[in-house]
């Protein structure tokens, strides 16, 4: 432990402990969501929690524990990298899930992609017909 565990030092320790426990609870929430939610799209909603907010809280607790300023940019770069890649992979997984029909349509409140897909299919069918004639 730190040499003087009183005053500001104790508060910083306390804050980082809270960050660590809340960040770990995000992972537990994601696991519970994975187990309980009915289909792929709602499971994807739960899966993002430890990737963004959980990682942020844990990296912030590292920064608080190290007690130096120069680690913060490094931790920020690690977090930004995760923040840039998580939406791309979520988009790819969600797109593949939509195309392979891994979703419960009765659970959707709106499906904006459906109209676009229908329009594209109609256009493709028209072009097929004109190509034949």
């Amino acid at each position, binding site marked *: *432990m730190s040499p003087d565990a009183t005053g500001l030092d104790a508060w910083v320790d306390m804050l980082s402990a809270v960050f660590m426990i809340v960040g770990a609870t995000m992972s537990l929430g994601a*696991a519970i969501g994975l187990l309980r939610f009915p289909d792929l799209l709602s499971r994807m909603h739960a899966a993002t929690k430890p990737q963004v907010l959980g990682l942020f809280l844990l990296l912030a607790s590292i920064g608080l524990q190290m007690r130096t300023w120069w680690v913060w940019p490094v931790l920020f770069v690690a977090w930004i990298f995760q923040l840039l890649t998580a939406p791309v992979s979520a988009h790819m997984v969600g797109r593949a899930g939509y195309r392979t029909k891994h979703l419960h349509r009765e659970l959707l409140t709106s499906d904006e992609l459906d109209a676009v897909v229908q329009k594209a299919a109609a256009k493709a069918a028209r072009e097929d017909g004109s190509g034949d004639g």
Partner: protein
Amino acid sequence: MMQIVLAVTAVIFSLAAAGAIVRISRGPSLLDRVLATDVLLAILGGALCVDMAVNRHLNNLMLVVAISIIGFIGSVTVARFVADRREPHES
């Protein structure tokens, strides 16, 4: 106090990893398994972060970044090449 925090987070991460592994083994489709593997990697990265914070070192930071890269490349690749192998009447 840090030892108590370490014990609590170890229990929480173990339960979370167990849940993700159950979803990997049960998951009805390939994409569910990919998603659960992504969550398992995130849990692993979080556990490495807690280890760094409690023991006050930065040795695992590159490993955390590498784990996020691996999760990204893996899920994007599998999602790109996944195909619908079920019968059409199931929808």
